[in-house]
């Protein structure tokens, strides 16, 4: 049984096609992540599924109903953590939890909730005095206060420090284990890899790939070779130096050089040969299977290439 069923969803703003024929489904109890760069259409899709926006066309069913006409019963069964919704800054964390929680048929208590999101020490502080990351945790708390069957998380950990991020992941995982369906959007690949049962990759309003993180990684052939750029090579010369050596295009971010190669043994052999000849060390040289990030980059590059 599906929690979300979307077929040929389209959304147009003026002459901009924000969502261009997207179809997917999310099973009950599944954690599904929509991946994509800013402007890919993630938030638009999520807001249509929540009933905030109307689709231009397409068939949408969420928890068995059409969200654009669904009422109170529907909103009682879902939880929403949006990027752009505020909280009353004049109230304390306890007060907003009680206020919002009071609208649902079943709700979590204040103590349980602040414990879940890690705001025990801030429970009696006004929301206006909290840091950005703490406010995001209030968002999360208000999203799950009504014990939702289906939780929408639109970039839930943006602005978190690493430890708050881990904690939120644990929480989302826990909610998933307890049987809630989670629809997540993110542009953190490690987040999707860690949390999602299945991932949909969105680019320019279209779904360009879908599958479990494992499947997506397996589909991508090749191995990732990475190392730190030696001091003797300028960053601008990296591509012209190592491209021919490895026989493929390379990616440079900061001093990190990465390339996805088909035959890792021969590529590494050529690379180390070059290093010996040049008399330099290749720091942090590693050979690894692609991560979801590599898959994502190659997919979106491909999509961009197709477009041009």
């Amino acid at each position: 049984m599906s929690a979300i069923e979307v077929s040929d969803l389209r959304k147009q703003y003026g002459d901009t096609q924000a969502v261009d024929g997207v179809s997917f489904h999310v099973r009950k109890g599944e954690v599904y992540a929509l991946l994509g760069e800013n402007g890919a259409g993630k938030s638009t899709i999520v807001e249509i599924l929540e009933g905030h926006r109307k689709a231009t066309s397409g068939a949408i069913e969420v928890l068995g109903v059409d969200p654009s006409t669904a009422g109170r019963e529907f909103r009682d069964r879902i939880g929403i953590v949006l990027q752009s919704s505020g909280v009353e800054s004049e109230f304390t964390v306890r007060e907003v939890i009680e206020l919002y929680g009071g609208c649902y048929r079943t709700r979590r208590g204040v103590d349980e909730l602040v414990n879940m999101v890690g705001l025990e020490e801030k429970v009696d502080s006004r929301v206006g005095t909290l840091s950005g990351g703490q406010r995001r945790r209030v968002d999360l708390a208000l999203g799950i206060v009504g014990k939702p069957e289906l939780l929408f998380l639109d970039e839930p950990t943006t602005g978190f420090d690493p430890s708050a991020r881990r904690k939120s992941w644990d929480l989302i995982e826990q909610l998933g284990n307890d049987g809630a369906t989670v629809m997540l959007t993110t542009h953190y690949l490690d987040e999707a890899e860690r949390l999602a049962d299945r991932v949909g990759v969105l680019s320019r309003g279209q779904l360009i790939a879908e599958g479990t993180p494992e499947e997506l990684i397996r589909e991508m052939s090749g191995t990732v070779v990475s190392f730190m750029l030696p001091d003797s090579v300028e960053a601008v010369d990296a591509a012209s130096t190592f491209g021919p050596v490895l026989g493929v295009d390379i990616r440079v971010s900061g001093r990190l050089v990465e390339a996805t190669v088909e035959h890792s043994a021969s590529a590494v052999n050529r690379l180390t040969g070059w290093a010996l000849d040049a008399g330099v060390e290749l720091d942090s040289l590693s050979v690894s299977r692609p991560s979801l990030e590599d898959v994502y980059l190659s997919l979106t590059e491909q999509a961009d290439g197709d477009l041009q």
Partner: protein
Amino acid sequence: MNSFPTTVKLVTTQTRYQLVTFRRIPVAVFFTLGLPLVMLVLFNALFGNSTIETPEGSWSSKQFYTGGLAAFTAVSATYTNLANMVPIRRDEGVLKRWRGTPLPTWMYVSGFILSAVVIAFIGVTLMLTLGVFAYDLEIDLAKMPAAFVTFFIGVGCFAALGMALASLVKSASSAAAAANATILPLAFVSNVFIQIDDPPQWVEIVGNIFPLKPFVEAFQDCFTPFVEAPAFNWSSLAFITAWGILGLVVALRKFTWEPSGSAPRGRRARRAAANS
């Protein structure tokens, strides 16, 4: 499955929540409740010893100021207050969050409006109490039913107009400006601050087109010595009600949950779409 909390409970909670919000925003408390009291004290200190001549008879300006400023307080607690607060909540994304909860829209909006009515009631009571003790205001019990009815019709109308303005104006900063730019000049031609003897015709027309002057006059009638009980001014009340209905229609048709920046809309967006 549990059932939803009762409507009475939800609306009460929402009203209380808006009242607590109001109390925690000092600037709102000052401008809504404090400033009219300051004006009352100042006006009386400066002009309180004169008398106002009307066709019905002469009248102490102390009594005039109390009734007029009490009505004005009711208007700033509803019209100005809602036109300020609702767009602020919209800009903050708070309205959007509420829309995602099971709370029905009308209950959320009721909380705003009922809290504004309570604030108006507190403001008017404060003003009249000060009037009775300090400025010779006479309370005639026989005219109090008319005072109550006029108050409730007036705050209903101005709450609806405040919601209408909040719906029409896109951002919080321009909504605050629009609320003050509409109500303050109008107050001058509506016998709130000054009783104009023999005004220029256009001033009189402007005063009579909008609902503020009829409301102020109908409310003042309930405290004027030479208006006989029961002091219901039915034609003014009907006029105010008509404005209230207009406000309600606009508010219901134009209400938006989201800040204007979140999706292109309006004249410019349509033109851009047509050009492409």
